[in-house]
């Protein structure tokens, strides 16, 4: 079954023709060329595919593209104001060496931003570790990811994002 789908991605209106079975992540990667969102598993556990739909983190591998009809999607490509001005979470990941191979990074950053906001910019290490349950990283041992998120929370608050 082929369906027309339209949504807003990173502030731009987009549309396309998809099969009913097309996942949102496939629409983003294959139709829109937004390959920053990754697929690392088929069981909804690794979190490499996390994006924001209407302001909330979701796993874009576990939602059909047609289900995002009319929605506002933000991906890793849509976070930075410009090449020189990254989102405070991106900046914190860089400052704290919270990424190595980079594959889990987009999902980590998207989950982390949602986490900071959901917890009203107030986080402690235990909360960060618990709330990263849905994001796997095989490189960093999480140490620097946790540090980065703790550093980003006040920075996000100060920046008003």
């Amino acid at each position, binding site marked *: 079954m082929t369906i027309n789908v339209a949504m807003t991605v990173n502030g731009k209106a987009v549309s396309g023709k998809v099969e009913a079975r097309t996942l949102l992540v496939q629409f983003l990667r294959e139709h829109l060329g937004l390959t920053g969102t990754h*697929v690392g*598993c088929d069981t909804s556990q690794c979190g490499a595919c996390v994006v924001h739909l209407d302001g909330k983190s979701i796993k874009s591998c576990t939602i059909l593209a047609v289900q995002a009809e009319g929605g506002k999607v933000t991906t890793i490509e849509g976070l*930075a104001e410009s090449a020189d001005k990254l989102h405070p979470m991106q900046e914190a990941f860089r400052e704290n*060496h919270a990424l190595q*191979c980079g*594959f889990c990074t987009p999902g980590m950053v998207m989950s982390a931003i949602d986490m900071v906001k959901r917890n009203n910019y107030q986080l402690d290490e235990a909360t960060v570790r618990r709330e*990263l349950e849905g994001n796997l990283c*095989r490189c960093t041992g999480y140490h620097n990811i946790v540090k980065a998120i703790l550093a980003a929370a006040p920075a996000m608050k100060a920046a008003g994002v």
Partner: protein
Amino acid sequence: MTAETGIGARVKRKEDQRFLTGTGRYVDDLPLARATYAYFLRSPHAHAKIKSIDTAAAKAMPGVVEIFTGADTAAAKMGGLICGWVVKDKHGQPHKAPPHPVMAADTVRYVGDPVAMVIANSAAEARDAAEAIKVDYDVKPANVDLSKALAKGTPEVHAEAPGNLIYDWEIGVKADVDAAFAKAAHVTKLDIVNNRLIPNAMEPRAAAAEYDKGTGNYTLWSTSQNPHVLRLILSAFVLGIPEHKLRVVAPDVGGGFGSKIFCYNEETMVTWAAAKVGRPIKWTAERAESFMTDAHGRDHITHAELALDKDNKFLAMKVETIANMGAYLSTFSTAVPTYLYATLLAGQYTTPLIYANVKAAVTHTAPVDAYRGAGRPEATFVVESLVSAAAKELKVDPAELRRKNFIPPEAFPYQTPVALQYDSGNYPPIIDEAMKIADYKGFESRRAEAKSRGKLRGIGFSSYIEACGLAPSQVIGQLGGGVGQWEAAQIKFNPTGNVQVLTGSHSHGQSHETTFAQIVSDKLGVPIENIEVVHGDTATTPFGMGTYGSRSLAVGGSAIMKAADKVIAKGKKIAAHLMEASVADVVFENGTFKVAGTDKAVPLGQAVFAAYVPHNYPLQELEPGMDENAFYDPANFVYPAGTQICEVEIDPDTGATEIVNFTAVDDFGNVINPMIVEGQVHGGITQGVGQALLECAVYDKDTGQLLSGSFNDYAMPRADDVPSFKTGYKVTPCPHNPLGVKGCGEAGAIAAPAAVMNAIHDAVAPIGVKHVPMPATPQTVWQAIHGGK
């Protein structure tokens, strides 16, 4: 300028911008016009004869372009996948080398063995069609249980390997070791299973290939740790495409940990088939396929004994190991449980006599090969488990027993009884520092406090040694390795003074783009932002042997140093000419050539410009241009060492183990970028913790089905499974490479399993529990405590 960006500085990574903004380019991200998509139909059986394969219905499915089976690859006379390391058994005979067809022809030997390749206009259509292929299997009994693999009557995996034995290998003189044991005051004995692991780099393996009919050139994009070696294997052994007609590109790669060293079926088929179908082909593994078909790691069964004299000095060690090879011999599989394992059994100790016997067995399971640490984690686990167990039995402090037996700092270079000669090291200050950071003195009061909360608290040491920075080519050759182990580099200045550093090493998380740039910035005084490190493409970079065995910096970085030396040497000649001075009088400091005792100075950039615009240039004596190559073949392995201390709390009601403290103090020689090194240590420790507490590849012993075939059943370490780590350094520079560096990529994973398991054994010892197998999952610990089912 170089103080902030040179050797030793915590430079932020150059590669981060693209990864943080979603603009990295991994294999699956590549847009290829008119691409087709491959899906591999795989054996659902661990062992079966293929009676027939009927692809007719599948070929008629929508979108299908072509289907290939083992009959096609056999008709094309495609070579098999190779094992590149010939291990000679204890009688001097080369190991048994059963064939490894790229597509299973008449027999399937593990669940996941590829049977048919479907190529279609979309990935979904390829998979749809694969379901329409009819394969008639004659299912046979499988050999899955390693403990029975070599027993009489166990089904054989290959006719070429009678009794499933690949080799029976030994090192050391058994009679001497037995004699030492006969005189021992105390003998500690352990039976150890080193659990099988699945690497699970977060990016699944992927391959894409295209063929240019006009030139006859092939291009393969692969998730490879070593594109040149992959090309060499495909060219020389498997596909017969001449090396100069095959370009292999490893673009951004999402982690490897060993699993992406090897030459695999899928990338081979994608390359070959791209020419057959005349369109690009893309393949990306689903995670389920990664679980089934990525080369697994570890999987040893070992009996080990340590003999001590009355003063608790180690007299001798003997080790018997059965190592699982899986169904086929993967690229480096044979070397892992021999030269990368048994040669490390001396650890940090003066044990004068060591004997090890290793039997490699094939089973109806996925191939097993190098995984982060590769042999050295297994060796460290044996040695450090033995030492801690001996300390328990003898009621001595585990740190004291270690210290008593450490190789003393004045003994280096130190020849071990198992072939290696350690170049440098100073172990006592490392354990001292680790104990200080971990507050070892305060442990007993923490244990008592935990007890008041109903928790069992324990502390464990792991003092590891590793041989890495592989390796002197001639030594590798003598041991049966099929390749050289040098690295190459090219420093290519542009006329405007910026630099491309081309390296044969590939980075897939290791941060070469930053670390290598730091070396060049430091050495040549070029601002780091003017340096670009280029890697991963056989068309543009010098030949590289690959990124594994913690070798990129020690070997690849040293090649860059040599190339930089050549730049300086040539620059001196140019500068001497420009300054009308003698070359012997020119010195190079902070990026500038000077004549000592004068104010004459030529910045490197000016010399480079003169080399490209040679209007005032000694053309009679010197070629124009500034583009220097170097190859570096190391004189020895490098020997990082360290001590980890792990502290755990066990909930005896549930068996759950929490790591409450983890300290690692390492000697990696000189450190180029401490921020990056710490990141490597954190990640390595977490993989080691994963092995100790969580991860285990489990096959059904009867059917050979992989029971831990997804993240639902294979427990990956998550953020709340580990604490923040405490790290420290001690530095004894490597004496034989120009950077004085050792290697840091594998250390964490090598040492951590023993640290964690020793802590667990310490925690349960007061309640009389002697043995907890690895991984110490909650159920396993609970069963050990309660003797339950």
